[in-house]
């Protein structure tokens, strides 16, 4: 069982071996020999209603809060990059980290259903990268990120980019503990994507319109696209760029640099609060420091 979050019971069912008898691996199955909970000292025969009032995503929210606390403590600015497949996320990231790695520590977590291709491309750009394969899963979740951080050292005082699974639907719901979701849309897609997938554009803080070098060759109405995006989210920051030519890249890099500054400022605030609390303990909780004399 995992020591940090207690997971592992379900994973233990994910083994692979042959059988001469049929059975399933439903982790929620009740075994006839399963030890009873210490609280279950009696059973109820009558039908009754039990109020729960619990958020379905509460467990993910708990893991996300733990990740966010860790990022705050270490002064790491974390971005969750989301888009359709093929929007140019990995190309943009490769180019981004090649520049930023000379300014501060940078690391990347890449999520895909299969292959380690994306992490390999990032590593080739000279930055630590870890691939998470979600198998049949359509999104990364906060629990998986927590475990990824056991294998990928956090870039203290720097930036962690999390490249989510290419999917404009499911990742919108799963907080990973990031400072912001960045949604990437390319001009080879439709300008109505913000309306077709509004939850993602509503959840994002920044939209990057990528592949602008292709605008002369495609039938894409930029003004209409930006208008659609702002209808869904009037507070959305929008930048236009081409990861291939580098046009517009500097504005995006500055946005990341500013975010990193804010993360460092938050870390300093946190440390100063802790320092003040420690000093208060010394003054109010025992007075002077005594030196033991032998």
């Amino acid at each position, binding site marked *: 069982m995992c020591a940090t979050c207690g997971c592992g019971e379900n994973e233990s069912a994910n083994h692979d071996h042959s059988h001469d008898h049929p059975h399933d691996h439903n982790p929620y199955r009740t075994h006839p020999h399963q030890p009873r*909970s210490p609280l279950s000292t009696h059973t109820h025969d009558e039908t*009754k209603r039990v109020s729960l009032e619990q958020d379905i995503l509460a467990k993910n929210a708990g893991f996300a809060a733990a990740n966010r606390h860790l990022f705050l403590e270490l002064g790491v600015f974390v971005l969750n990059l989301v888009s359709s497949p093929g929007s140019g996320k990995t190309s943009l990231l490769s180019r981004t980290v090649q520049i930023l790695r000379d300014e501060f520590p940078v690391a990347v977590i890449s999520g895909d259903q299969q292959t380690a291709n994306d992490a390999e491309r990032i590593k080739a750009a000279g930055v630590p990268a870890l691939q998470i394969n979600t198998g049949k899963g359509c999104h990364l979740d906060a629990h998986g990120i927590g475990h990824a951080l056991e294998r990928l050292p956090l870039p203290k005082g720097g930036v962690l980019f999390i490249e989510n699974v290419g999917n404009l639907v*499911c990742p919108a719901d799963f907080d990973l503990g990031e400072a912001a979701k960045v949604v990437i849309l390319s001009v080879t897609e439709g300008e109505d994507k913000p309306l077709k997938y509004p939850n993602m554009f509503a959840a994002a803080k920044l939209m990057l319109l990528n592949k602008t070098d292709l605008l002369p060759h495609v039938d894409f109405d930029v003004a209409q696209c930006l208008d659609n995006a702002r209808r869904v989210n009037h507070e959305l920051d929008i930048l236009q760029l081409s990861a291939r030519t580098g046009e517009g890249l500097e504005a995006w890099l500055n946005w990341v640099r500013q975010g990193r500054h804010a993360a460092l400022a938050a870390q300093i605030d946190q440390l100063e609060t802790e320092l003040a609390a420690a000093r208060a303990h010394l003054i109010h909780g025992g007075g002077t420091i005594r030196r033991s004399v032998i």
Partner: protein
Amino acid sequence: MHEFSLCESILETITTQAHQQGFRRIRRVWLEIGALANVELEALRFAFAVVREKTVAAQAELDIITLQGRAWCLDCTQSVEINQLFDPCPLCGGYQWRLTGGNELRIKEMEVD
């Protein structure tokens, strides 16, 4: 299909409660889902029917209560109904609003014996 992930969370919550409190069977579960939440209800029902198998919730019916989308219009300074995330304010036609309801994903209660 993150509806499967959502259903696994629902099932974990309700079966844990049932075991802790010594209930033998979960007969019905009420969910409150916002009309603007990022969920396909048919996919959610299908996924629940799959994940509930061979658990104390194997027979559990799913009752989904849909909650209306609501927003606070910054220009009108009042609460309005919103039916899509790209809807304009029904009063002023603007988009300067903040969502205040309609994206809930909540397990409300369950019926057990």
